């Protein structure tokens, strides 16, 4: 109980620090509060309903996402399209050599990732798999996690699942990774001693640091963030959320963040994939 009030106090401190000036009375009903924008939460979910981060953003930001031309993320998608059929590496192959078209070969992939790879005995995010193919099948150099090429490719792959419900498997060999991700989500960390759950579950809809807190879902990644002026990965977002509470962030692609990605995907099970989304 005491710890809980400390967390609440820290949140208030953050909110006041932002000088929001929005009080409970004059706050209009947010679109995230409207029933028609809610999605049924999965079985055993800690949330009463799911709502995409899209509905916490301003009409202007949403309009950018709604139009594939105005959505700046498509500048990267075009790069992904180029890379898809570009031969690279000692094997003389491109993605298209084995997967033909992305429209066919990559349909639904991002909706069910991350997955457990028995071959590698680990959880693989789409980004891991792309590099696995590059290194092992193309004999090409890995792409950096946050490089333009990698983001373009994962955005292009994500686009092939757009509109499909997130649907990850959490059973069998995946279970221990899921549990680890769940623990991470609930662990307090950093100088503010906060866990993901304190912001994204207990306080979504609140105004904090000049933003409306969302449920913190992963269905829109990679995301073009107006603040970044660039496309960014989910693991970059994790680092940001860790930094904001003055906690030490993990590496992009680390097992910790990949397990967290899995748990987050499950929390958003049923939400439609929006990649590549636009956020503030």
């Amino acid at each position, binding site marked *: 109980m005491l710890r809980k009030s400390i967390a609440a106090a820290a949140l208030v401190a953050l909110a006041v620090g932002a000088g929001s000036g929005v009080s409970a009375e004059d706050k209009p009903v947010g679109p995230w509060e409207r029933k028609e924008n809610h999605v049924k939460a999965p079985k055993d979910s800690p949330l009463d309903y799911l709502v995409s981060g899209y509905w916490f953003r301003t009409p202007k930001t949403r309009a950018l996402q709604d139009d594939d*031309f105005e959505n700046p993320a498509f*500048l990267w998608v075009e790069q992904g399209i180029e890379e898809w059929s570009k031969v690279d590496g000692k094997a003389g192959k491109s993605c298209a050599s084995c997967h033909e078209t992305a429209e066919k070969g990559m349909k639904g992939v991002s909706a069910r990732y991350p997955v457990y790879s028995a071959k590698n005995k680990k959880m693989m995010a789409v980004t891991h798999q792309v590099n696995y193919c590059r290194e092992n099948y193309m004999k090409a150099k890995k792409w950096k996690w946050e490089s333009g090429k990698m983001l373009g490719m994962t955005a292009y792959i994500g686009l092939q699942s757009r509109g499909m419900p997130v649907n990850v498997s959490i059973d069998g060999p995946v279970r221990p990774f899921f549990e680890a991700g769940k623990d991470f989500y609930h662990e307090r960390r950093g100088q503010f001693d906060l866990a993901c759950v304190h912001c994204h579950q207990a306080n979504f809809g609140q105004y904090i640091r000049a933003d409306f807190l969302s449920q913190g879902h992963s269905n829109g990644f990679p995301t073009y963030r107006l603040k970044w002026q660039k496309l960014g990965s989910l693991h970059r977002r994790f680092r940001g959320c860790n930094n904001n509470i003055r906690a030490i962030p993990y590496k992009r692609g680390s097992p910790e963040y990949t397990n967290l990605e899995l748990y987050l995907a499950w929390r958003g099970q049923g939400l439609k994939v929006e990649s590549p989304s636009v956020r503030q």
Partner: protein
Amino acid sequence: MSRPRVRVPRKIKKGDTVTIKTLIAHKMETGVRRNKKTGKLIPRKIINGFEAKIDGKTVFKASLHPAVSANPYISFAISPEKSGKIDFVWTEDGGKTFTKSAKFTVA
């Protein structure tokens, strides 16, 4: 980087006004940011000019400033009387240009 995208309707009805949309991937380095490691200023490099011509005649022109955000989006309206070709040119500090063209028919 710096790949431009344009959206021009292929077919335009005579007398109609249509919106042309353009977007270019560009960092728009303001010249006031410092390299985090060395503390030195990063030189300014922005798209400072944009021009659209239909069959060689300027129909839209703009100067851009360092306050413009990365990946600038520019849109404007045209109401062409006959079919033609529209050429777009973005000019970067230092004089480098990026171009894109599109054809349209008016009927």
